[in-house]
C-alpha cells in the first residue's frame, strides 16, 4: 500500500506536456485515428464494512483486498465520438481467516462517448456502455467473488464546462445502470426475507452521480472528485451474515485523479476513499496506469 502511494506521488510530480483522451467519466476526447491504450493496475482494500447500517470489522477477514489489472483502449472515431473498451483481470484476498481468494478475467465492457453539444467551453456529452461477463468466476461467494456475472447497460449524461484560458473545468454526470439477472451455482437462496427456490437471482439496478473539479492543460490534468453510486433497491446484509448479490450496495466516495502524458507515453493515477456506505466495504483504492498513444496517418 505504501509503495503504491509512492508511485502515485512520483506520477504526480512528473512534468506536464500534451495530454489526450480518457475515461467514460470525462469530457476529453481522442482525435480521429488516434488510439490510446491504458494498462492500469488497481488496488483496493477495506478492513471495515457496513453490515446493513452497522459499521463493523471482521476478524475472520481482517483486511480484504481486491487487485486488478485492466487493459483499456480508447479509440478516436472522430474528435467528438470515442469508443472505450476495457477488460480487467481481478483477484481477491484477505489478511485473516480461511476464505479462499478468487481470481480471473471479469467482465468486458464497451462505451461510446459522444459530444452532442459544444457551445464555447460548455459541452453536453452522452455516454452509453455495456458489459458482459467473460470469465466463469463464481459470483455468489461474496466478499471474495470478483464480479456478479450479470450483463450491464449504462446510460450517462455528462455536462462539462472548461474555462479556455486557465484550463479549469467542472464536470457533472448522472447515470442509470441496468443489470441483468444472474445465475448462481445453488438452486435456492435467501433474499428479501424469503427463500427463492431457483438459481436465478435478481440483481438491483444502479445509479450514480458525480462532480469533478480540475485543471486540464497541455500534457497534464488533475482533479478532485466526489461520487455517489448506489443500487435502486435490494435487501441488506443480515446480522453477522455474508453479503449477497441482491444487497442494496451504496457508496459515497471522494478522490483525486491525475494524468500526465507529455508525448505518446504517459501515466495516470487515481485515489478514492469511501466516506459513507451501505452493505459495502469502506475501501481505499489506488490506481496507477501506463498510457500509450498511437496516431495513425490520415
Amino acid at each position: 500500500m505504501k509503495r503504491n502511494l509512492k508511485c502515485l506521488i512520483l506520477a504526480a510530480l512528473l512534468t506536464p506536456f500534451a495530454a489526450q483522451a480518457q475515461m467514460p467519466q470525462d469530457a476529453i476526447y481522442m482525435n480521429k485515428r488516434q488510439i490510446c491504450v491504458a494498462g492500469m493496475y488497481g488496488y483496493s482494500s477495506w478492513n471495515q464494512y457496513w453490515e446493513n447500517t452497522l459499521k463493523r470489522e471482521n476478524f475472520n477477514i481482517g483486511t480484504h483486498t481486491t487487485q486488478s489489472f485492466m487493459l483499456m483502449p480508447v479509440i478516436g472515431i472522430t474528435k467528438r465520438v470515442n469508443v472505450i473498451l476495457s477488460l480487467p483481470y481481478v483477484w481477491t484476498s484477505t489478511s485473516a481467516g480461511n476464505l479462499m481468494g478468487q481470481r480471473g478475467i471479469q467482465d468486458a465492457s464497451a462505451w461510446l462517448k459522444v459530444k452532442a453539444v459544444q457551445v464555447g467551453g460548455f459541452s453536453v456529452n452522452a455516454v452509453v456502455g455495456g458489459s458482459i461477463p467473460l470469465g466463469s468466476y463464481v459470483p455468489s461467494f461474496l466478499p471474495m467473488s470478483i464480479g456478479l456475472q450479470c450483463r450491464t447497460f449504462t446510460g450517462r449524461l455528462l455536462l462539462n464546462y472548461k474555462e479556455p484560458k486557465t484550463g479549469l473545468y467542472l464536470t457533472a454526470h448522472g447515470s442509470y445502470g441496468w443489470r441483468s439477472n444472474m445465475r448462481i451455482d445453488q438452486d435456492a437462496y435467501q433474499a428479501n426475507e424469503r427463500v427463492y427456490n431457483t438459481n436465478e437471482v435478481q440483481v438491483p439496478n444502479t445509479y450514480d452521480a458525480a462532480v469533478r473539479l480540475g485543471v486540464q492543460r497541455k500534457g497534464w490534468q488533475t482533479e478532485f472528485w466526489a461520487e455517489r453510486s448506489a443500487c435502486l433497491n435490494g435487501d441488506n446484509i443480515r446480522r453477522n451474515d455474508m453479503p449477497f448479490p441482491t444487497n442494496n450496495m451504496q457508496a459515497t466516495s471522494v478522490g483525486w485523479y491525475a494524468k500526465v502524458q507529455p508525448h505518446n507515453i504517459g501515466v495516470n493515477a487515481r485515489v478514492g476513499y469511501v466516506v459513507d456506505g451501505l452493505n459495502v466495504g469502506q475501501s481505499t483504492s489506488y490506481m496507477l496506469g501506463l498510457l500509450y498513444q498511437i496516431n495513425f496517418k490520415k
Partner: protein
Amino acid sequence: MKKYSKLLTISCVLVGLSAAVISCDKSITEPLRVGYTPTSVDDKAGTWKTYVLTAPTDVTVATPTAVTSSEYLAEVADLKSKSASLTQEQQEAVVYWGAGAVYRWNEIARELAARYNVPPASTPDGKYPVPDAANPLADPRFPFANPPYTARAFAYLSVAQYDALVAAWNFKYKFKRSAPSKADASVRVALPSSALPSYPSEDAVVAAASYTVLKAMFPGEVPFLDAKLAEHRNSRLWAGMNVMSDLNAGGNLGSQVAAKVMARARADGMSAANNQTLTAAMITDAKARGLSEVWVSQETPARPPMLPNYGAVMNWNFDAATKVKLRPGPPPALGSAEFTTALNELKAINKNQTREQARIANYWADGAGTYTPPGHWMRTAANAAHDAKYSEVRMARTLALVATALMDAGVCCWDTKMFYYYPRPQQFGVKTSVGLPNFPSYTSGHSTFSAAAAVVLASIFPDQADDFWKKAQEASDSRVYGMIHYRFDCTAGLACGKNIGAYAVERGKADGSGL
C-alpha cells in the same frame, strides 16, 4: 456528411447490441407446485404405526353432526357464501395451499431454517452470546438454526404431521363424513376432490400440528406462523373443501398430537446439547486415544464448538447402544501416509480448483443463511412425493422417514465428531471456497446426512435410487472440493449414513403401510 453516416452506423450497432444485451423482464420464475388428486387416498392409513402416539385413541375427536342436521346445513350455507366469489388474493391462497398441506408446511420450515441459520456475532469482549429462547428476537436471535438444530426441527415437524394424520385417517374412516361438495352438489370447489372423508380436515390437522411444532422451534416467528395458520384454514373455506366443523375438529386433533410430540422433544436431551463444559473431557479422551493435535476453532475470537453434546440427543430409529455401534472406526493418524495423501488432495484443489469442483462445492454448501443440508434433502423428498402424487398421509410418512433418518444421522455424526475431535484441514494451511463449519472434521456431516436420506428415498422411490445415490455422493464430494473435509471424513460419513438410513427403511417396512 460522411462523418454523420459513420456516427449513425455506430449508434445503430450500439442500439442493436444493447437490445441484444437487455431483456427488460427481471421477474424471477420459480418452479410452480399445484394440487392434484392423489393416486391413492390410503384409506387404511389409520392403522399405520405412529412414532409418539401409541394409538390414534390417545387423542379425542368429537362425533360430528350428520350431514342432514340443521347445524351442518347451516355450515354448508356459510361455506357457500365464503366460496362463491374469491378475490385475487384468496384465489392465490387456494392455489398455494392446494399444492399440499404437508408440502407447504415443510417449505415454511425450510424458510424459517434459512432465516435463522446465522451464527451469533462475537461481542467486543471476544465472547459469543448464546441465543435465548425466552428473548428470540434479541441479537443473537434464537435459534441459531444450524444443521443439527434444523434436522431436529424437521424430525419433530414431520413426526407430528405424520402421527396427527394417521390419527385423523382413523377418525375420518370412523365417522365417514363426506366432503361438503358430496353432501351438496351446489358447493363450488376450487381444488381436486377425492373420496376421502372430510371430518376432521387433514389440512387443519397438518396446519395445527405444524404450527405448534414450529412455534416451539422458532418462537420469534409467532406472528408469521399465525398468519400462515389462518390463511391455510381460510383457504379450505374459500376452496369449498371443508366446513368449519371439519376445520375445528382437525385443528383440535393436530394440536393434541403436536403437544404429545413436543413433550418428547422437551425430554430428548436437546436442552443439554450445548453443554460446553463437556468439551474438556472430550479433548482429554481423544488425546488419550493417541490424537496428537485436536480440533481448534479457526475463528477469531475462537468460537465454542457447535452443540458439542448433540450426539447425546435421543434417536428415532435406534437406541443409544446402537448409536455407539454405528460410530465409524478411528480416522488415520495425523502425519500418517493416508492422512498426508488426503491433505495433499486438498492442497492440490486449493491451488487449482476447477470450475466444476467449485460448482459442486457451492451447490451443496447449504451453509449460513440457507436451509442447511437437512433442508436440502427435505426439499428433495417433498418434491419426489409431490411428483408421485402422494396423499397427505403418505407424503407425511415419507417426510417423517427421511427427517428422522436425518436427525439420527446428525446425532450419530455429532457423537463421532466429538468422540474423535479431529482437526480440520484448515489447521494445516488449507483455505476454503465455501466457509468453514465450527466443529471437528471427522466424519463429514454432509456425507452422513446425505447417505441416510438417499437410502430412505431410494427405498421409497426405487426407480430413482441411482439418482438419489448420485446426489448423496456428489454432496459428499462437495466437501472435499470445498476443502473443508478430508476424503476419509466423507467416505466414513457416507458409509455410516447408509447404515443409519437402513434403520428408517426397516421401520418403514414394518409400519403397517405395506409400502
